[in-house]
């Protein structure tokens, strides 16, 4: 039995070291991150904090984003210029005011899990809330992607919309109104609560807030 014990100890050291130093300790360290108030050096931002913090608001939307597998085509991670062309593509945030930058750990505060993504078959969504601030536009895209982009590979998420007969007048938030050829009746598609949550979540994706000088000078990357 001695051999087994010796082997198990060696194995536990081999795997335990990365487990402790790469996973457990950084997890505790990074879960203590909090938003940081801007200091006096940050001039126009004094009185607010980075990130502005709307934690917990968009959890439902993020759950739908995850369960539909959006993260398999859309990343939420902007790499610095030495590691990719993301910023040149305009994914880094608002172009005016020099906000555009790569993402940092605090940008994801309040999310259950950062859906950094697996592939880029679509564009990066870290700052889609700035790029596409129009909820109606996003609803139309989700309902029928081809309506907005001639060349797109995005599937339709029409199942997140209720299709129903128009009663008196079409609803304000109807994404599409059409007349059925057979019955001659007028139909409309309105977002379900899931679609609304998803769009709310997409609109909330803004990860370009100015990093307080105190943090950049500390250089801890968080």
């Amino acid at each position: 039995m001695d051999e087994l014990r010796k082997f198990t100890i060696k194995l536990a050291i081999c795997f335990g070291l990365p487990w402790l130093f790469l996973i457990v300790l950084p997890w505790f360290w990074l879960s203590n991150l909090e938003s940081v108030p801007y200091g006096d050096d940050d001039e126009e931002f004094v009185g607010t904090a980075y990130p502005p913090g709307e934690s917990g608001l968009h959890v439902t939307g993020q759950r739908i984003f995850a369960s539909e597998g959006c993260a398999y085509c859309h990343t939420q991670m902007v790499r610095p210029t030495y590691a990719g062309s993301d910023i040149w593509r305009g994914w880094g945030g608002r172009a005016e005011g020099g906000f555009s930058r790569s993402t940092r750990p605090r940008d994801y505060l309040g999310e259950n899990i950062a859906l950094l993504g697996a592939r880029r078959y679509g564009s990066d969504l870290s700052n889609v809330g700035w790029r596409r601030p129009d909820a109606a536009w996003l609803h139309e895209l989700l309902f029928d992607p081809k309506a907005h982009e001639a060349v797109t590979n995005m599937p339709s998420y029409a199942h997140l919309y209720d299709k129903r007969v128009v009663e008196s007048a079409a609803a304000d938030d109807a994404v599409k109104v059409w007349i059925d050829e057979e019955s001659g009746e007028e139909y409309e598609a309105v977002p379900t609560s899931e679609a609304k949550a998803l769009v709310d979540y997409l609109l909330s994706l803004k990860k370009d807030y100015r990093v307080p000088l105190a943090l950049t000078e500390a250089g801890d990357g968080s």
Partner: protein
Amino acid sequence: MTTDENSTQGSDAAEENDAKLRAYIDSTTRLPVLFFFTSAAVWLVISAVLGVISSTSLKSAAFFPIIFTWFNETIWVVNWVQLDWYQLLGYGRVYPAFMSALIYGWGIQAGIGAGLWIMARLCRVPFRNTLTLIVAGHLWNIGVTMGMIALICGNGTSVPWLDFPFFVWPFLLAAYLVVTVWIVVMFRSRRSGPVYVSQWYLLAAFLVFPWLYLTANLFLHAFKGSAVMGAAIGAWYSSALLYLWFVPIALAAAYYLVPKILGRPIYSNILTKIGFWSMFALAGWTGMQRYLGGPLPSWMPAVGAAATIGMVLPLIVVVTNLYMTVRDQMGYMQYSPTLRFTMFGLLGFVMMVLVGAGMSFFEFSKFLQFTMAVESYEMAGLYWFFSMTMFAAFYFIGPRVTGCEWLSRGMIRWHFWFSAYGSIVLAGWMLVGGISQGATLYVWDTPVAMSVEILKIHIVAEAIAWIMIIISNLMFLFHTGLMCLRLGRRSGMEPTLIHELPKGAGPDAVATEGAAAS
């Protein structure tokens, strides 16, 4: 760590007793091993079908909506086909389902089947309480099925390789722990004498998995903490699963099968040791290079990248060791299915480690990160290396646990060539696809949609590769089914070789492949 498994030296009487013991062990392992292997093979076919569907959805998002519309509008088709059902076949749901079926349905079950049998054989311990193992196997399958249904219906977590919703992991962990207990108990009651290298690999893989799986799931589902660490743990888990589970199990099988087939010891004891410990020392640090340049403290992806590049050391050592064991007998690959699948699978190991190491450099990762090259890396490991080695193991184990020989050399041959085609396309061609996609994405003013348009020809190739794999594995499943029903060949118990062996050719101990020689 000994490298000579064939060292049962002794009198003829001792050898005869040992043969009887081995036959007895094989008869006790029959049910659990066949259970794990057949359910794994079924999941492999399911996963390959999902692979075709996911490639199709990626190639043309409108394909399934059009098909469903057509069903919906065609009068003679039952009208319960609902237009909205195409959502079940969208890329975002089918791709994770496909990967989960491949990993948890096929990979881990095939590994458990092969691992249990090899461990029992090397420890010379017959199975007891096989019923418990069968129950654990059912529990595992129930867990995977629940997870798959949940994924397709839209409950995935979008964490690659950990897509199953939170309620699945306790099932899988419980089932797995039973198998781990079996492995450890077998090891503790082994016959005295030196321990063979395959036993160490198996023991390590079976001990590490529960630790790894529990850590990943607790941090993802139970503790609420850092969002970015969740993503990092997902990346770490998938890499550790690859290097600490799939690779060791496949290497345990390779280290067991090659000397068995050729009747000679492993080339070098010291290389075996270096290969083993360098891999286990490095593997736990890999993984976070997936987010090179991402929102993690930058030392974390850097450590992952360095460790992944370091995996080239165990690669060189292990491949040299196995190659030198075969050395002048490479020609025997033409005849022995087991040796052919094992040695071909080893090429997949080379491919996987080299692609993984390449993607760990900024120079390459800025092109290849988040492209199809990731698929090439994963498929080189999961299909080319791991699956091919598992087929090798099963061509060896099958006759022993069922007591009859493989029926058709043609089916083995076609299984090999179709699977080999699939492996090379999935790993090799997808790398080319990833490079062209990444190069297009890197040019900042080309639309993202353009990079996918360029990729489409490669996606078609991927779908065709999965169709080939479906064909090859339906044949394998059918062949295995015949074996399970004990309808295999019984006349003359010499092994089924891919081609007839000319007189006088082949290694000295060629008869070891057949069931008769056990």
